[in-house]
């Protein structure tokens, strides 16, 4: 009977002290879903990624300028062909 009472007291003490024990443990950081903005960037992190960022933006610039140039060149070819055809047509109509 005495043993049973001791066990009950020990159990109760354990149950009461448990939340306090859990609270004192370091809490894990809250789960994040997606991007989180960082306010301070370590200087060592800036250099390695630099060439990739510069490369990506340069690539975009080259691609877009190249594509615009390609449209202009093709348009020029078509216009030149149209002028030649019109000249040929007007020459043909004047000789008839």
């Amino acid at each position: 009977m005495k043993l049973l009472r001791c066990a009950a007291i020990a159990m109760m003490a354990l149950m009461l002290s448990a939340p306090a024990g859990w609270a004192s443990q370091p809490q894990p950081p809250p789960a994040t879903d997606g991007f989180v903005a960082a306010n301070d960037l370590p200087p060592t992190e800036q250099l390695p990624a630099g060439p990739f960022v510069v490369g990506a933006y340069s690539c975009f610039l080259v691609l877009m300028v190249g594509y615009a140039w390609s449209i202009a060149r093709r348009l020029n070819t078509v216009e030149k062909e149209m002028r030649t055809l019109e000249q040929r047509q007007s020459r043909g109509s004047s000789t008839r």
Partner: protein
Amino acid sequence: MVRKLFTPLVVLTAAMFAYAPIAIANAPYESTMLLVQKIFYFHLATWMALAVAVSVCAVGSAMYLFKGHEGADRVAFAAAELAVVYCTFGLISGSLWGRKAWGVWWQWDAKLTMAFMLEMIFLGYLIVRKYGGPGSEKLSAAMGIFGAATAPFIYKSADWWRTIHPQTSVMKTLGKNAPPMWNVVWFCGTAFVLLFLVLLALRVGLEERRAELDRLYLEAEA
């Protein structure tokens, strides 16, 4: 109407692209990827414009196939070419980002492989159009519709299958977690879509001149 809007559209697009690097530089750094995450602003914007390009191509192709509208076919052809350009940049920028973030240039996972297949479908569209001979317009129009149909699967593939690519939840939570980053994403997305419209107008103009040239040749032969 299009000609009237063209110059203001070019000015607005140029102004947005001039400001974009400043907006990107001022956007906060992401806590885990830091500087390399700055590629994201052009990378995501490219895929936004690509989604618009493949949609325009699909609508134009459908109008040509079912209604025989030749102007719609010219728009679809121009949009398909732009889809190839945007997809190329999306794959290159993703690869550059992946090299730093994942340690590899390329990974044959679901999303990346499907994006590569989309590029192949639209390259196929252009090849059929150039070398397919008479009737290739209808065949390429069908390819444009099926190519565009793969786009939603590419978008959702990171959620449905296990891939190393970030899930679409990034976009859902970005506005809540980091509004300054969210604003820059939409700014760049709008700039890319406007650039698409400018290039589309130029490219459709080229196709119209080609159609005019063909008509002149036919008249000369008659």
